[in-house]
């Protein structure tokens, strides 16, 4: 059986009993095996998948079953999964097997979903290329025309974006702290939604930057994102920052079109030196929406230029504290032959954390330290307030914003790994959304001349994922993006 199903089509086929979850799951287990050269999965759980599929088939046979009954998914390795190794892409967690299940994944299993395995990612979700993973890089299923060069799948949710793009799963979970769902989705021709901060529970997700982290769906279509978000989202008494806002039927809310929708184009997102292809695609996106009845308005987000520096103070500050628990004392990697407790900390952490994580811990420790706090962390918090206010002001004039998702297409493995600043620039269009806590959606919109996917981003008001998804559907339909990467890895 082909694995080129969308989540919605597979769901409908299962409900209609045209296929069984067992058959579907077996096909995906085979695809995952054949996809191993892509290095998308760090842990495969075929036995668990088959057991879950059998249970789903039993429920479907009785005419029962949840919204995701029998549908095989991939889970980013940042989500703690009970009894299944969880590494966060890091050596320091060793072979940590959580005795608990994250709220988001529990919600998925409660809805009947089937777990295929855990996907590769940048270490502790820090990176934009999946190259900082302790498990090695993931390769983008896409290659440029007439090239065999391996490209990155984006990051940090690179394993998930790759698995979705290569049809190794129906859909996947991701997490997004500064663009880690949207950027990998954009460079793999898939759909990625970062929901409003507080929409999905963070409980059981290994923390990177607590005030920015948010889980979301990575899918093949906008409809699939709507379906998956509906099951991932919930208020959670175990996460004080989750919000008690009803979860609507996002799929149903896709209907109705965008006539009269006011779409803002933030002028500050026209960056000097950006590739002309990006600007052209952006204009095209605006035209598509206009053609479907939307009104295009120019808006201003004046503090956009401070977003990256603000992000690279706030996120490392929180990470330096969140990652203090990885000390070799209770779980994960412990250095051998430590002389004393300080030596144990230093050796365990030096051996366990990769270079990028160490860099961010050091930056974060520095910006919080006595004498520097006011100059960095306190000022970054003020800027964060101003950035959020920019959006509030913009939404007086419009309902949703349209921007590019990334400054360019997928780049080659190794291209930017020695230049952290160049790497950080990948998130230039996405970090503002995390700083303001808003929902953002990346939708595939076209190909570069070299044949690589590019995406557009829609940014909505807090808890207005429905509008974002509806506008995203309009882009998707207008773009008619039906491209698939050539399957080169099966031969590899």
């Amino acid at each position, binding site marked *: 059986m082909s694995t080129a199903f969308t989540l919605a089509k597979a769901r409908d086929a299962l409900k209609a009993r045209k296929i069984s979850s067992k058959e579907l799951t077996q096909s995906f287990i085979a695809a995952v095996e054949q996809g191993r050269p892509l290095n998308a999965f760090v842990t495969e759980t075929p036995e668990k998948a088959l057991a879950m599929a059998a249970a789903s088939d039993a429920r479907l046979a009785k005419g029962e079953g949840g919204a995701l009954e029998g549908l095989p998914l991939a889970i980013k390795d940042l989500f703690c999964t009970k009894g299944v190794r969880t590494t966060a892409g890091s050596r320091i967690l060793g072979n940590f097997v959580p005795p*608990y299940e994250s709220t988001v994944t529990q919600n998925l299993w409660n809805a009947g979903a089937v777990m295929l395995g855990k996907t590769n990612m940048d270490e502790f979700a820090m990176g934009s290329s999946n190259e900082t993973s302790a498990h090695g890089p993931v390769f983008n299923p896409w290659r440029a025309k007439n090239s065999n060069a391996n490209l990155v799948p984006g990051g940090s949710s690179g394993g998930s974006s790759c698995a979705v793009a290569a049809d190794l799963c129906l859909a996947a979970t991701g997490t997004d702290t500064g663009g880690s769902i949207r950027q990998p989705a954009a460079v793999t021709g898939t759909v990625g939604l970062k929901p409003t901060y507080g929409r999905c529970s963070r409980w059981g997700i290994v923390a990177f930057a*607590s005030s920015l982290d948010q889980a979301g769906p990575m899918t093949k279509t906008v409809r699939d994102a709507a379906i998956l978000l509906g099951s991932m989202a919930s208020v959670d008494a175990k996460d004080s920052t989750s919000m008690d806002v009803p979860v609507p039927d996002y799929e149903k809310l896709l209907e109705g079109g965008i006539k009269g929708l006011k779409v803002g184009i933030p002028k500050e997102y026209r960056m000097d030196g950006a590739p002309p292809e990006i600007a052209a695609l952006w204009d095209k996106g605006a035209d598509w929406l206009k053609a479907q009845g939307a009104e295009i308005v120019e808006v201003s987000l004046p503090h956009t230029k401070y977003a990256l520096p603000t992000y690279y103070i706030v996120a490392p500050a929180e990470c330096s504290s969140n990652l*203090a628990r990885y000390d070799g004392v209770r779980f994960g990697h412990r250095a051998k032959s430590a002389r004393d407790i300080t030596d144990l900390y230093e050796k365990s952490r030096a051996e366990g954390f990769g270079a990028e994580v160490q860099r961010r811990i050091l930056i974060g420790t520095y910006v919080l330290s006595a004498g520097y706090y006011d100059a960095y962390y306190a000022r970054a918090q003020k800027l964060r307030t101003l950035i959020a206010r920019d959006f509030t002001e913009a939404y007086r004039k419009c309902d949703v914003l349209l921007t590019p998702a990334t400054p360019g297409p997928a780049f080659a493995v190794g291209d930017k790994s020695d230049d952290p600043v160049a790497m950080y620039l990948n998130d230039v269009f996405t970090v503002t959304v995390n700083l303001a806590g808003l929902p953002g959606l990346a939708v595939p919109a076209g190909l570069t001349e070299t044949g690589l996917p590019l995406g557009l981003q829609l940014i909505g008001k807090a808890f207005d994922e429905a509008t974002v998804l509806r506008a995203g559907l309009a882009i998707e339909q207008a773009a008619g993006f039906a491209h698939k990467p050539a399957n080169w890895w099966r031969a590899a």
Partner: protein
Amino acid sequence: MNAPVPNKFIKGQTGEWEIVIGLEVHAQVLSKSKLFSGASTEFGAEPNAQVSFVDAGMPGMLPVINEKCVEQAVRTGLGLKAKINLSSIFDRKNYFYPDLPQGYQISQYKNPIVGEGEVFIDLKDGSSVRVGIERLHLEQDAGKSLHDQNPDSSYVDLNRSGIALMEIVTRPDMRSSEEAAAFLKKLRAIVRYLGTCDGNMDEGSMRADVNVSVRKPGAPLGTRCEIKNVNSMRFVALAVEYEARRQVEIIEGGGAIKQETRLFDSKLNETRSMRSKEEAHDYRYFPDPDLLPLELDVAWVAAIEKTLPELPDEKRARFVAAGLSPYDASVLTAERELADYYEDLAKGVDAKAAANWLNNEVLGRLNRDGLSIADVPVSAAANNAIVAMIAEGAISGKIAKDLLDIVWNEGGDPRALVESRGLRQVTDTGAIDAAIEAVIAANPAKVEEVKAKPKLAAWFVGQVMKQTGGKANPVAVNAALKKRLNLPEEG
């Protein structure tokens, strides 16, 4: 800040020195579960038996505030007559230590839940001193490192990890070791009255960091040293005494005090350097992004305020108004159980008589037997009956003490015992007169002496009491004797 009080100065080689003391008290919040997790706070469990995934700092775990702990902090703040901050913030205090699983302690730094308040302490000389409270904040306790279990390894017990503590910080308003100990005693009484901390210093439920500096009277504040984790009132007093002497000697010897953290060695009664200011941690405080600002509702705070019990100072004032001396009132209000016992004992009888009875007879016996008021074998109601019977003239003071001994050792109802054992005072004048005649007949010489020296009548009273087995009413005996021997009234 309080004005210098000369009799509290200590003497050095170069004259008098004033001690300046401020305290930071850690009081464990009385609650069933921890500050940010559902794990139990019960004392004395097996190591690591009361540890949730949150307390162990497991990946992806998040803190959720325990409303009961917030309520207890607010209640304590109200009891300290302090400002309740309707918005406060939890911060992370970052440092590495094996018994700190998260790598940070969740505490409150710039925006504590409780602001300025005050406590009045009562000293032995009857004076009262105001000690300003700077703030009270909520924070997590750490676990405990065990170094004596294995020659090659240290173990960690996380049962305490995450338990809620209130850190109560005073102004530098205390001027002697007596004041520091008295503050701790008073604070302990207040939190025990409020039911917000059990005050068990042996179990570590209350411990103090003591900040001590010395200065020439009226001079600016000296450099202070912080003495960590002093866990009894006596040790607080000893630590202050030692530390003040040490600082005076250094300054008088031409040296300067280094700001540092010291620890108190209760075996040697001395303080020792732990770490200097230069070695102090940079805690990198910042607001905990896992927790929203703590917003309190005015009505919720007001509802807590309505449930506050009468506190020691108010109770003491009421007792004084009822006729007790300030000293007696202080003693009887130091513990809520004692005050409650007293109030039951004093129902319908003279307040002062009840206080004297409790202080002299009941507390005296408890002291003798090494018991506390919680273990008292005779109920307040029984004591109340005894005191009432004295007032009624049904029994004498002497018989009352014997009666208390009987009830103390054998139990029983005092009024019933008075009847069944024939302890009732004899007020029947016929019986008293007969006893007087018998004593006179047996001691003719004494009669002449008394007539010459009426003060010796007391001897006759004693003899008559003896004759009646102590049951005669001494007042009646006195009156009858005077009449019989024709003594003047004032005799």
